[in-house]
């Protein structure tokens, strides 16, 4: 048989443009691989039940919850995490818009919000308020009441914020 079941697997992933090769236990969640093995702690663990979206990363361009994925499932994939948005410290228009619209309070959900909104803006350059609310449905924020978050994302599409 070509592939015997194993308790660990050597995986190769590209994260924010950098290649990583690691041997990981099959039971390790992707979010733990990112945070504990690679020290990419910008991706947060909120609920660890797949409900809150704080752990959202982009897997081959699509938002996914990294607490509902095993690291071994990401073998061969290209990932983007919050650390990849502003690698040189220069904020993206979306990040600047979050700042200008006061779209965060405690900030815990923000990495996930930014990754989901980044994916939306890459598909739909000028999303409506309805588009934004639909795209962010999987990201829970317990501080803001969402109004400023939605305004911040819509404003990027309209080109009225952050250049």
């Amino acid at each position, binding site marked *: 048989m*070509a592939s015997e*079941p*194993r308790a660990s697997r050597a995986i190769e992933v590209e994260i924010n443009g950098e290649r990583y090769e690691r041997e990981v236990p*099959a039971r390790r*969640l992707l979010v733990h691989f990112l945070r504990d093995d690679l020290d990419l702690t910008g991706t947060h663990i909120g609920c660890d039940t797949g409900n809150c979206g704080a752990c959202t990363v982009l897997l081959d361009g699509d938002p*996914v919850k990294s607490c509902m994925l*095993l690291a071994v*499932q990401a073998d061969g994939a290209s990932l983007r995490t919050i650390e990849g948005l502003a690698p040189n410290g220069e904020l993206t228009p979306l990040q600047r818009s979050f700042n200008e619209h006061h779209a965060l309070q405690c900030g815990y959900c923000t990495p996930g919000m930014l990754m989901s909104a980044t994916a939306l803006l890459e598909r739909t350059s000028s999303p409506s308020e309805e588009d934004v609310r639909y795209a962010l*449905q999987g990201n829970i924020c317990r501080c803001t009441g969402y109004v400023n978050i939605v305004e911040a994302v819509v404003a990027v599409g309209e080109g009225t914020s952050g250049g």
Partner: protein
Amino acid sequence: MLLSEVAYARPASVDEAIALLAGNDGARALAGGQTLINVMKARVASPEVLVDLADLAELREIGFSSAGLLEIGAMVTYAQLVSSSEVDVARPILARVAATIGDVQVRNRGTVGGNVCVADPTNHLPPLLTVLDATFTVRGEGGERSVGAEDFFKGVYLTEVGEGELLTKVSVPPSKGAGDGFAGVTIGKHGTYIVNATATVSEDGVRIALGCVGAVPVRATAMEEALSGGDLGEDAVRAAAEGLGASLDPPGDVHGSADYRRRLAEVSAVRAVLQAASGTGGQ
């Protein structure tokens, strides 16, 4: 959360996947993982071997059979259903319903095969595929067979797919002018259903199935017969739904009592039939 130790395999072909499932005690197929990973966290399920279907490209395809059936591979995601031109042409209700499952992240990973094989009584697709008269192709080491929805769903979390077997595809007849409707009441806007109803109206008559009121989708056969005369006006549909609730034995829980579900079943069935009759269900 730390999962129990588990072994992992990523087969390159369907035959290899089936051999792995059949040859390892405690092996489970891993599709999108949007249910399985969570139940493993909760230790509700502790498979010893995960057989990841991720590399089986043939299970990710949407196409048409030579007989004109819409064929949806078991690993097709909800996001794929939503954006598929084949689904849009053949049976757009599938895309409309898939667009309301979970959230963006879940739709990017969750699969048609996972939804029906989990067979949670609150899942969207089992009642929908029952009404659409879908057939399910199950493959094992001894070959493959096709079963209808009424044989596929066997109980809570229980389907016709046995140990060492794999659901490979779901085949759905194209609408050919039929109207489809899907209605219900959820916990939160796109949350879990408390009750849902699917209906289809075609030259062959009306088919209705309810979700969340029994272990498997429940056909509303008396209501179907009451509508066989062809009058699908609102008064006639409401009259046909009378007694439907009383015929059910739904569960009661924190989200709704059994009586509330009986009432919702009638309301949802009426709405689904009216949608289907007006041809707006797939829009």
